[in-house]
Protein backbone atom coordinates (compact mmCIF):
# COMPACT_ATOMS: atom_id res chain seq x y z
CA UNK A 1 0.00 0.00 0.00
CA UNK A 2 1.53 3.28 -0.97
CA UNK A 3 1.52 6.23 1.35
CA UNK A 4 -0.95 8.26 -0.74
CA UNK A 5 -3.53 5.51 -0.55
CA UNK A 6 -2.89 5.06 3.16
CA UNK A 7 -3.30 8.81 3.61
CA UNK A 8 -6.59 8.76 1.69
CA UNK A 9 -7.95 5.93 3.83
CA UNK A 10 -6.81 7.69 7.00
CA UNK A 11 -8.44 10.92 5.86
CA UNK A 12 -11.65 9.09 5.01
CA UNK A 13 -11.77 7.34 8.37
CA UNK A 14 -11.31 10.70 10.08
CA UNK A 15 -14.27 12.08 8.22
CA UNK A 16 -16.62 9.34 9.40
CA UNK A 17 -15.77 9.79 13.09
CA UNK A 18 -18.53 12.38 13.79
CA UNK A 19 -21.24 10.18 12.28
CA UNK A 20 -19.82 7.21 14.10
CA UNK A 21 -19.91 8.98 17.49
CA UNK A 22 -23.61 9.74 16.96
CA UNK A 23 -24.29 6.13 15.98
CA UNK A 24 -22.46 4.97 19.09
CA UNK A 25 -24.42 7.36 21.32
CA UNK A 26 -27.72 6.14 19.80
CA UNK A 27 -26.73 2.61 20.81
CA UNK A 28 -25.46 3.63 24.27
CA UNK A 29 -28.71 5.49 24.94
CA UNK A 30 -30.59 2.19 24.47
CA UNK A 31 -28.54 0.16 26.95
CA UNK A 32 -30.59 -1.04 29.90
CA UNK A 33 -29.49 1.02 32.90
CA UNK A 34 -30.62 -0.58 36.15
CA UNK A 35 -31.79 2.64 37.80
CA UNK A 36 -35.43 3.18 38.71
CA UNK A 37 -37.29 5.32 36.17
CA UNK A 38 -34.01 6.10 34.38
CA UNK A 39 -35.17 4.90 30.95
CA UNK A 40 -38.03 7.42 31.07
CA UNK A 41 -35.81 10.42 31.76
CA UNK A 42 -32.56 9.29 30.10
CA UNK A 43 -30.60 12.19 28.54
CA UNK A 44 -30.83 12.52 24.76
CA UNK A 45 -27.20 11.63 24.03
CA UNK A 46 -27.37 11.63 20.21
CA UNK A 47 -28.87 15.13 20.23
CA UNK A 48 -25.78 16.42 22.06
CA UNK A 49 -23.46 14.95 19.45
CA UNK A 50 -25.49 16.32 16.55
CA UNK A 51 -25.41 19.78 18.10
CA UNK A 52 -21.69 19.56 18.75
CA UNK A 53 -20.72 18.42 15.27
CA UNK A 54 -23.03 20.79 13.43
CA UNK A 55 -21.40 23.66 15.29
CA UNK A 56 -17.79 22.52 14.94
CA UNK A 57 -17.67 20.42 11.78
CA UNK A 58 -20.77 21.10 9.69
CA UNK A 59 -18.86 19.87 6.64
CA UNK A 60 -18.79 16.37 8.14
CA UNK A 61 -22.42 16.46 9.21
CA UNK A 62 -24.52 16.55 6.02
CA UNK A 63 -28.24 16.60 6.60
CA UNK A 64 -28.72 13.28 4.80
CA UNK A 65 -26.48 11.66 7.44
CA UNK A 66 -28.49 13.23 10.27
CA UNK A 67 -31.66 12.03 8.57
CA UNK A 68 -30.36 8.47 8.20
CA UNK A 69 -29.22 8.37 11.83
CA UNK A 70 -32.66 9.56 12.90
CA UNK A 71 -34.29 6.77 10.91
CA UNK A 72 -31.97 4.25 12.53
CA UNK A 73 -32.93 5.50 15.99
CA UNK A 74 -36.63 5.31 15.04
CA UNK A 75 -36.19 1.68 14.03
CA UNK A 76 -34.51 0.87 17.33
CA UNK A 77 -36.83 2.61 19.74
CA UNK A 78 -40.01 1.49 18.02
CA UNK A 79 -41.03 5.00 17.04
CA UNK A 80 -42.83 5.71 13.77
CA UNK A 81 -40.22 5.97 11.02
CA UNK A 82 -39.36 9.57 10.33
CA UNK A 83 -40.11 10.99 13.78
CA UNK A 84 -36.58 11.28 15.15
CA UNK A 85 -35.29 11.89 11.62
CA UNK A 86 -37.56 14.92 11.38
CA UNK A 87 -36.47 16.26 14.77
CA UNK A 88 -32.78 15.81 13.92
CA UNK A 89 -33.26 17.49 10.54
CA UNK A 90 -34.88 20.51 12.16
CA UNK A 91 -32.18 20.71 14.84
CA UNK A 92 -29.56 20.45 12.11
CA UNK A 93 -31.18 23.24 10.10
CA UNK A 94 -31.63 25.49 13.13
CA UNK A 95 -28.11 25.05 14.51
CA UNK A 96 -26.53 25.45 11.07
CA UNK A 97 -28.42 28.71 10.73
CA UNK A 98 -27.33 30.02 14.11
CA UNK A 99 -23.84 28.61 14.23
CA UNK A 100 -22.16 31.96 13.55
CA UNK A 101 -23.28 33.01 17.05
CA UNK A 102 -21.76 29.89 18.60
CA UNK A 103 -18.42 29.33 16.90
CA UNK A 104 -15.41 30.70 18.72
CA UNK A 105 -17.45 31.80 21.73
CA UNK A 106 -16.88 30.78 25.37
CA UNK A 107 -18.19 27.40 26.42
CA UNK A 108 -21.11 28.79 28.39
CA UNK A 109 -22.54 30.36 25.23
CA UNK A 110 -22.13 27.06 23.38
CA UNK A 111 -23.87 25.34 26.32
CA UNK A 112 -26.65 27.95 26.45
CA UNK A 113 -27.29 27.33 22.76
CA UNK A 114 -27.81 23.68 23.56
CA UNK A 115 -30.12 24.65 26.44
CA UNK A 116 -32.27 26.42 23.83
CA UNK A 117 -32.18 23.59 21.28
CA UNK A 118 -33.06 20.81 23.76
CA UNK A 119 -36.47 22.14 24.92
CA UNK A 120 -37.39 22.90 21.32
CA UNK A 121 -36.57 19.35 20.25
CA UNK A 122 -38.27 17.81 23.31
CA UNK A 123 -41.40 19.92 22.97
CA UNK A 124 -41.71 19.18 19.27
CA UNK A 125 -41.27 15.46 19.88
CA UNK A 126 -43.89 15.61 22.61
CA UNK A 127 -46.39 17.31 20.28
CA UNK A 128 -45.73 14.96 17.38
CA UNK A 129 -45.95 11.81 19.50
CA UNK A 130 -49.07 13.06 21.28
CA UNK A 131 -50.75 13.75 17.94
CA UNK A 132 -49.65 10.47 16.42
CA UNK A 133 -50.72 8.39 19.41
CA UNK A 134 -53.90 10.36 20.00
CA UNK A 135 -53.30 11.07 23.68
CA UNK A 136 -51.76 13.77 25.82
CA UNK A 137 -48.54 12.23 27.05
CA UNK A 138 -47.10 12.89 30.53
CA UNK A 139 -44.97 16.02 30.54
CA UNK A 140 -43.10 15.56 33.83
CA UNK A 141 -40.73 12.89 32.50
CA UNK A 142 -40.09 14.98 29.40
CA UNK A 143 -39.15 17.98 31.56
CA UNK A 144 -36.85 15.94 33.80
CA UNK A 145 -35.28 14.32 30.73
CA UNK A 146 -34.70 17.74 29.23
CA UNK A 147 -32.99 19.06 32.37
CA UNK A 148 -30.80 15.93 32.59
CA UNK A 149 -29.88 16.33 28.92
CA UNK A 150 -28.74 19.92 29.43
CA UNK A 151 -26.90 19.11 32.69
CA UNK A 152 -24.98 16.17 31.25
CA UNK A 153 -24.09 18.01 28.02
CA UNK A 154 -20.63 19.22 29.17
CA UNK A 155 -19.49 15.65 29.83
CA UNK A 156 -20.42 14.49 26.33
CA UNK A 157 -19.09 17.73 24.78
CA UNK A 158 -15.77 17.18 26.57
CA UNK A 159 -15.55 13.64 25.21
CA UNK A 160 -16.41 14.81 21.71
CA UNK A 161 -13.89 17.64 21.97
CA UNK A 162 -11.16 15.12 22.66
CA UNK A 163 -12.31 12.84 19.90
CA UNK A 164 -12.19 15.85 17.59
CA UNK A 165 -8.71 16.81 18.76
CA UNK A 166 -7.24 13.36 18.40
CA UNK A 167 -9.18 11.88 15.52
CA UNK A 168 -10.98 14.43 13.40
CA UNK A 169 -8.87 17.54 13.53
CA UNK A 170 -10.14 21.05 13.90
CA UNK A 171 -9.83 22.23 10.31
CA UNK A 172 -12.87 24.27 9.56
CA UNK A 173 -13.11 24.80 5.85
CA UNK A 174 -16.35 26.75 6.08
Amino acid at each position, binding site marked *: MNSAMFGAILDYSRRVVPGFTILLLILVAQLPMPL*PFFPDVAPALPLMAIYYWVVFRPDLMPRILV*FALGLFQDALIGAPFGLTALIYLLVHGFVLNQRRFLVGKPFWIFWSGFAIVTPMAAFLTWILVSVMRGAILPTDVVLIGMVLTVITFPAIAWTLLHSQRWLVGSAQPS
Partner: protein
Amino acid sequence: MAKRNASISVAGLAVPFRIWGQRFAFLGLLALAFALMLLSKAETGALERARTVIVDATTPILDVMSRPVEAGQAAAQSVESFFIVHAENGRLREENARLLRWMLMARQLEVENATLRAQLDFVPATAPRAITARVVADTGGAFFHSLLINAGARHFVQRGQAVVSHGGLVGRVAEVGERSARVLLLTDLNSRIPAIVESTGDRVIVTGDNSPWPTLTYLASNSPVSAGDRVLTSGHGGVFPPGLVIGVVAEASEARVTIQPAVQLSRVSEARILDYGVNGILPPPEQVPARLATPPAASPAAAPVAPLAPAAAPAASPTAGAEAAQ
Protein backbone atom coordinates in the same frame (compact mmCIF):
# COMPACT_ATOMS: atom_id res chain seq x y z
CA MET B 1 -12.06 41.10 -19.74
CA ALA B 2 -15.06 39.50 -21.32
CA LYS B 3 -13.82 36.12 -20.14
CA ARG B 4 -13.54 37.34 -16.57
CA ASN B 5 -17.06 38.77 -16.65
CA ALA B 6 -18.42 35.48 -17.92
CA SER B 7 -16.72 33.54 -15.13
CA ILE B 8 -18.03 35.95 -12.50
CA SER B 9 -21.56 35.71 -13.81
CA VAL B 10 -21.39 31.89 -13.88
CA ALA B 11 -20.13 31.85 -10.31
CA GLY B 12 -22.80 34.37 -9.38
CA LEU B 13 -25.43 32.10 -10.82
CA ALA B 14 -24.00 28.96 -9.28
CA VAL B 15 -24.25 30.22 -5.70
CA PRO B 16 -28.02 30.86 -5.71
CA PHE B 17 -28.52 27.57 -7.51
CA ARG B 18 -26.54 25.83 -4.79
CA ILE B 19 -28.56 27.54 -2.07
CA TRP B 20 -31.82 26.67 -3.78
CA GLY B 21 -30.65 23.10 -4.23
CA GLN B 22 -29.85 22.86 -0.55
CA ARG B 23 -33.22 24.31 0.39
CA PHE B 24 -34.97 21.82 -1.84
CA ALA B 25 -32.95 18.99 -0.34
CA PHE B 26 -33.92 20.15 3.13
CA LEU B 27 -37.60 20.47 2.27
CA GLY B 28 -37.51 17.18 0.38
CA LEU B 29 -36.09 15.35 3.40
CA LEU B 30 -38.65 17.02 5.68
CA ALA B 31 -41.43 15.87 3.35
CA LEU B 32 -39.93 12.39 3.25
CA ALA B 33 -39.88 12.26 7.06
CA PHE B 34 -43.54 13.27 7.21
CA ALA B 35 -44.48 10.74 4.54
CA LEU B 36 -42.67 7.99 6.42
CA MET B 37 -44.47 8.94 9.64
CA LEU B 38 -47.83 8.69 7.93
CA LEU B 39 -46.87 5.36 6.35
CA SER B 40 -45.73 4.07 9.75
CA LYS B 41 -49.06 5.13 11.19
CA ALA B 42 -50.76 3.04 8.53
CA GLU B 43 -48.65 0.07 9.68
CA THR B 44 -47.47 -1.01 6.29
CA GLY B 45 -45.76 -4.37 6.25
CA ALA B 46 -42.71 -3.17 4.33
CA LEU B 47 -41.72 -0.59 6.97
CA GLU B 48 -42.23 -3.08 9.79
CA ARG B 49 -40.07 -5.61 7.96
CA ALA B 50 -37.40 -2.95 7.48
CA ARG B 51 -37.56 -2.27 11.21
CA THR B 52 -37.13 -5.92 12.19
CA VAL B 53 -34.20 -6.24 9.77
CA ILE B 54 -32.49 -3.20 11.34
CA VAL B 55 -33.21 -4.37 14.88
CA ASP B 56 -32.05 -7.90 14.04
CA ALA B 57 -28.78 -6.56 12.70
CA THR B 58 -28.24 -4.29 15.72
CA THR B 59 -29.20 -6.72 18.48
CA PRO B 60 -25.86 -8.63 18.49
CA ILE B 61 -24.02 -5.30 18.90
CA LEU B 62 -26.34 -4.19 21.69
CA ASP B 63 -25.93 -7.62 23.25
CA VAL B 64 -22.16 -7.16 23.47
CA MET B 65 -22.44 -3.53 24.58
CA SER B 66 -24.90 -4.35 27.37
CA ARG B 67 -22.60 -6.97 28.94
CA PRO B 68 -20.36 -4.49 30.79
CA VAL B 69 -23.46 -2.70 32.10
CA GLU B 70 -24.76 -6.00 33.39
CA ALA B 71 -21.38 -6.87 34.90
CA GLY B 72 -21.31 -3.48 36.62
CA GLN B 73 -24.76 -4.07 37.98
CA ALA B 74 -23.74 -7.51 39.28
CA ALA B 75 -20.66 -6.01 40.94
CA ALA B 76 -22.71 -3.26 42.57
CA GLN B 77 -25.17 -5.82 43.81
CA SER B 78 -22.47 -8.01 45.30
CA VAL B 79 -20.97 -5.03 47.14
CA GLU B 80 -24.41 -4.06 48.34
CA SER B 81 -25.19 -7.59 49.50
CA PHE B 82 -21.89 -7.72 51.38
CA PHE B 83 -23.01 -4.87 53.59
CA ILE B 84 -26.47 -6.21 54.28
CA VAL B 85 -25.50 -9.87 54.62
CA HIS B 86 -26.26 -9.99 58.34
CA ALA B 87 -29.73 -8.49 58.08
CA GLU B 88 -30.40 -10.54 54.97
CA ASN B 89 -29.47 -13.73 56.81
CA GLY B 90 -31.99 -13.00 59.56
CA ARG B 91 -34.67 -12.23 57.03
CA LEU B 92 -33.98 -15.40 55.08
CA ARG B 93 -34.10 -17.56 58.24
CA GLU B 94 -37.48 -16.12 59.05
CA GLU B 95 -38.67 -16.60 55.49
CA ASN B 96 -37.33 -20.15 55.47
CA ALA B 97 -39.32 -21.03 58.58
CA ARG B 98 -42.43 -19.59 57.02
CA LEU B 99 -41.83 -21.41 53.72
CA LEU B 100 -41.28 -24.71 55.51
CA ARG B 101 -44.75 -24.39 57.02
CA TRP B 102 -46.11 -23.64 53.53
CA MET B 103 -44.26 -26.62 52.14
CA LEU B 104 -45.94 -28.94 54.61
CA MET B 105 -49.29 -27.50 53.70
CA ALA B 106 -48.51 -27.76 49.99
CA ARG B 107 -47.59 -31.43 50.37
CA GLN B 108 -50.86 -32.15 52.08
CA LEU B 109 -52.75 -30.28 49.37
CA GLU B 110 -50.80 -32.07 46.66
CA VAL B 111 -51.87 -35.45 48.02
CA GLU B 112 -55.42 -34.24 48.39
CA ASN B 113 -55.40 -32.82 44.87
CA ALA B 114 -54.02 -36.01 43.39
CA THR B 115 -56.76 -38.01 45.12
CA LEU B 116 -59.50 -35.67 43.94
CA ARG B 117 -58.12 -35.55 40.40
CA ALA B 118 -58.02 -39.31 40.25
CA GLN B 119 -61.65 -39.38 41.35
CA LEU B 120 -62.68 -36.83 38.69
CA ASP B 121 -60.54 -38.12 35.78
CA PHE B 122 -59.19 -34.59 35.53
CA VAL B 123 -57.20 -33.67 32.41
CA PRO B 124 -54.35 -31.42 33.56
CA ALA B 125 -53.70 -28.15 31.73
CA THR B 126 -50.60 -28.16 29.55
CA ALA B 127 -47.59 -26.69 31.28
CA PRO B 128 -46.37 -23.55 29.52
CA ARG B 129 -43.02 -23.48 27.79
CA ALA B 130 -40.69 -20.65 28.63
CA ILE B 131 -37.94 -19.08 26.61
CA THR B 132 -35.42 -17.08 28.58
CA ALA B 133 -33.74 -14.18 26.84
CA ARG B 134 -31.50 -11.30 27.79
CA VAL B 135 -32.78 -7.78 27.64
CA VAL B 136 -30.28 -6.04 25.37
CA ALA B 137 -31.93 -2.65 25.11
CA ASP B 138 -34.35 -0.60 27.09
CA THR B 139 -35.61 1.62 24.34
CA GLY B 140 -37.81 3.45 26.79
CA GLY B 141 -37.57 7.19 26.61
CA ALA B 142 -40.52 9.25 27.65
CA PHE B 143 -42.56 8.30 24.61
CA PHE B 144 -42.22 4.62 23.77
CA HIS B 145 -41.90 1.91 26.40
CA SER B 146 -40.39 -1.23 25.04
CA LEU B 147 -37.50 -3.64 25.53
CA LEU B 148 -35.44 -5.51 22.96
CA ILE B 149 -34.57 -9.11 23.76
CA ASN B 150 -32.04 -11.37 22.07
CA ALA B 151 -34.46 -14.12 21.10
CA GLY B 152 -36.71 -14.15 18.07
CA ALA B 153 -38.51 -16.39 15.60
CA ARG B 154 -35.43 -18.61 15.60
CA HIS B 155 -36.10 -19.35 19.26
CA PHE B 156 -39.86 -19.78 18.73
CA VAL B 157 -40.81 -16.39 20.08
CA GLN B 158 -44.14 -15.35 18.63
CA ARG B 159 -46.06 -12.13 18.52
CA GLY B 160 -48.52 -11.77 21.41
CA GLN B 161 -46.74 -14.03 23.90
CA ALA B 162 -46.68 -12.92 27.53
CA VAL B 163 -43.33 -11.81 28.95
CA VAL B 164 -42.62 -12.21 32.66
CA SER B 165 -39.69 -11.59 34.96
CA HIS B 166 -39.33 -12.69 38.55
CA GLY B 167 -42.90 -13.85 38.65
CA GLY B 168 -44.54 -10.65 37.44
CA LEU B 169 -45.83 -9.59 34.06
CA VAL B 170 -43.57 -7.31 32.02
CA GLY B 171 -45.58 -6.99 28.82
CA ARG B 172 -46.16 -8.78 25.58
CA VAL B 173 -44.16 -9.53 22.46
CA ALA B 174 -45.03 -6.88 19.88
CA GLU B 175 -42.57 -7.46 17.04
CA VAL B 176 -40.54 -10.53 16.21
CA GLY B 177 -37.39 -10.59 14.13
CA GLU B 178 -35.21 -13.56 13.33
CA ARG B 179 -33.03 -13.29 16.44
CA SER B 180 -34.60 -10.37 18.30
CA ALA B 181 -37.99 -9.31 19.52
CA ARG B 182 -39.58 -6.18 20.90
CA VAL B 183 -41.49 -6.41 24.15
CA LEU B 184 -44.19 -3.78 24.63
CA LEU B 185 -44.12 -2.91 28.32
CA LEU B 186 -47.37 -2.86 30.26
CA THR B 187 -46.77 0.84 30.98
CA ASP B 188 -46.85 1.78 27.28
CA LEU B 189 -49.72 3.82 25.96
CA ASN B 190 -50.69 1.00 23.60
CA SER B 191 -50.82 -1.68 26.29
CA ARG B 192 -54.23 -3.08 27.30
CA ILE B 193 -54.31 -6.16 29.51
CA PRO B 194 -57.51 -7.93 30.59
CA ALA B 195 -57.13 -8.40 34.33
CA ILE B 196 -58.94 -9.30 37.49
CA VAL B 197 -58.65 -7.79 40.97
CA GLU B 198 -57.84 -10.75 43.19
CA SER B 199 -59.70 -9.72 46.35
CA THR B 200 -62.93 -8.49 44.76
CA GLY B 201 -63.05 -10.47 41.53
CA ASP B 202 -63.67 -7.31 39.50
CA ARG B 203 -62.82 -7.65 35.83
CA VAL B 204 -60.77 -4.70 34.62
CA ILE B 205 -58.42 -3.62 31.87
CA VAL B 206 -54.93 -2.55 32.90
CA THR B 207 -54.31 0.42 30.65
CA GLY B 208 -50.84 1.83 30.10
CA ASP B 209 -50.56 5.61 29.86
CA ASN B 210 -46.77 6.01 29.53
CA SER B 211 -46.52 6.83 33.24
CA PRO B 212 -44.87 4.29 35.57
CA TRP B 213 -48.30 3.51 37.07
CA PRO B 214 -50.85 2.03 34.66
CA THR B 215 -54.51 2.66 35.45
CA LEU B 216 -57.39 0.24 35.89
CA THR B 217 -60.19 1.01 33.46
CA TYR B 218 -63.71 -0.40 33.24
CA LEU B 219 -63.77 -0.80 37.00
CA ALA B 220 -67.25 -0.60 38.51
CA SER B 221 -67.61 2.70 40.38
CA ASN B 222 -68.86 1.03 43.55
CA SER B 223 -66.08 -1.53 43.61
CA PRO B 224 -64.41 -1.90 47.03
CA VAL B 225 -60.91 -1.96 45.54
CA SER B 226 -58.30 -0.57 47.89
CA ALA B 227 -54.56 0.04 47.84
CA GLY B 228 -52.57 -3.16 48.18
CA ASP B 229 -55.00 -5.42 46.29
CA ARG B 230 -53.28 -7.72 43.84
CA VAL B 231 -54.16 -7.49 40.16
CA LEU B 232 -53.73 -10.61 38.00
CA THR B 233 -54.22 -11.37 34.32
CA SER B 234 -57.68 -12.74 33.75
CA GLY B 235 -56.97 -14.64 30.56
CA HIS B 236 -59.92 -13.06 28.79
CA GLY B 237 -59.45 -12.42 25.11
CA GLY B 238 -57.00 -15.28 24.90
CA VAL B 239 -53.89 -13.11 24.71
CA PHE B 240 -52.45 -13.61 28.17
CA PRO B 241 -52.71 -16.75 30.26
CA PRO B 242 -54.71 -16.24 33.47
CA GLY B 243 -53.13 -15.80 36.88
CA LEU B 244 -49.95 -13.85 36.08
CA VAL B 245 -49.28 -11.14 38.65
CA ILE B 246 -49.44 -7.69 37.07
CA GLY B 247 -49.06 -5.60 40.22
CA VAL B 248 -50.78 -4.22 43.27
CA VAL B 249 -53.17 -1.32 43.51
CA ALA B 250 -51.08 1.74 44.40
CA GLU B 251 -53.74 4.39 44.63
CA ALA B 252 -57.50 3.99 44.66
CA SER B 253 -59.42 7.22 44.49
CA GLU B 254 -62.80 8.16 43.08
CA ALA B 255 -61.23 9.48 39.92
CA ARG B 256 -58.78 6.76 39.09
CA VAL B 257 -57.19 3.57 40.29
CA THR B 258 -53.53 3.05 39.49
CA ILE B 259 -51.34 0.03 40.00
CA GLN B 260 -47.69 -0.43 40.86
CA PRO B 261 -46.29 -3.10 38.52
CA ALA B 262 -45.01 -6.16 40.38
CA VAL B 263 -41.79 -6.06 38.37
CA GLN B 264 -39.47 -3.09 38.53
CA LEU B 265 -39.48 -2.60 34.78
CA SER B 266 -36.24 -0.64 34.60
CA ARG B 267 -34.34 -3.47 36.28
CA VAL B 268 -35.45 -6.33 34.07
CA SER B 269 -32.27 -7.88 32.73
CA GLU B 270 -33.65 -11.28 31.81
CA ALA B 271 -37.11 -11.87 30.50
CA ARG B 272 -39.05 -15.11 30.22
CA ILE B 273 -41.39 -15.46 27.29
CA LEU B 274 -44.25 -17.80 28.08
CA ASP B 275 -45.82 -19.97 25.43
CA TYR B 276 -49.14 -21.25 26.64
CA GLY B 277 -50.34 -21.98 23.16
CA VAL B 278 -52.96 -19.26 23.56
CA ASN B 279 -52.11 -17.21 20.53
CA GLY B 280 -55.32 -15.31 20.84
CA ILE B 281 -56.23 -12.73 18.28
CA LEU B 282 -52.86 -11.05 17.92
CA PRO B 283 -50.73 -12.70 15.27
CA PRO B 284 -52.36 -12.81 11.85
CA PRO B 285 -51.59 -16.27 10.43
CA GLU B 286 -49.61 -14.94 7.49
CA GLN B 287 -47.13 -13.29 9.85
CA VAL B 288 -46.27 -16.48 11.69
CA PRO B 289 -43.00 -17.78 10.23
CA ALA B 290 -43.25 -21.17 8.58
CA ARG B 291 -40.72 -22.76 10.89
CA LEU B 292 -43.06 -22.25 13.83
CA ALA B 293 -45.38 -24.79 12.29
CA THR B 294 -43.13 -27.51 13.66
CA PRO B 295 -43.58 -28.16 17.36
CA PRO B 296 -40.76 -26.59 19.41
CA ALA B 297 -39.84 -29.83 21.15
CA ALA B 298 -39.07 -31.52 17.82
CA SER B 299 -36.05 -29.32 17.20
CA PRO B 300 -32.86 -29.94 19.14
CA ALA B 301 -31.85 -26.34 18.44
CA ALA B 302 -34.56 -25.13 20.76
CA ALA B 303 -32.25 -25.15 23.73
CA PRO B 304 -33.86 -22.28 25.62
CA VAL B 305 -37.23 -23.96 25.59
CA ALA B 306 -37.95 -25.61 28.89
CA PRO B 307 -41.12 -26.66 30.63
CA LEU B 308 -42.19 -24.34 33.41
CA ALA B 309 -44.21 -24.81 36.50
CA PRO B 310 -46.95 -22.22 37.21
CA ALA B 311 -46.04 -18.75 36.10
CA ALA B 312 -45.48 -17.25 39.53
CA ALA B 313 -42.72 -19.76 40.30
CA PRO B 314 -39.26 -18.20 40.53
CA ALA B 315 -36.96 -18.49 37.57
CA ALA B 316 -35.26 -21.87 37.69
CA SER B 317 -32.08 -21.12 35.84
CA PRO B 318 -32.29 -17.93 33.85
CA THR B 319 -28.67 -17.74 32.86
CA ALA B 320 -28.58 -21.22 31.38
CA GLY B 321 -31.34 -20.32 29.00
CA ALA B 322 -29.77 -17.03 28.13
CA GLU B 323 -26.47 -18.64 27.28
CA ALA B 324 -28.16 -21.23 25.17
CA ALA B 325 -29.98 -18.49 23.33
CA GLN B 326 -26.77 -17.09 21.93
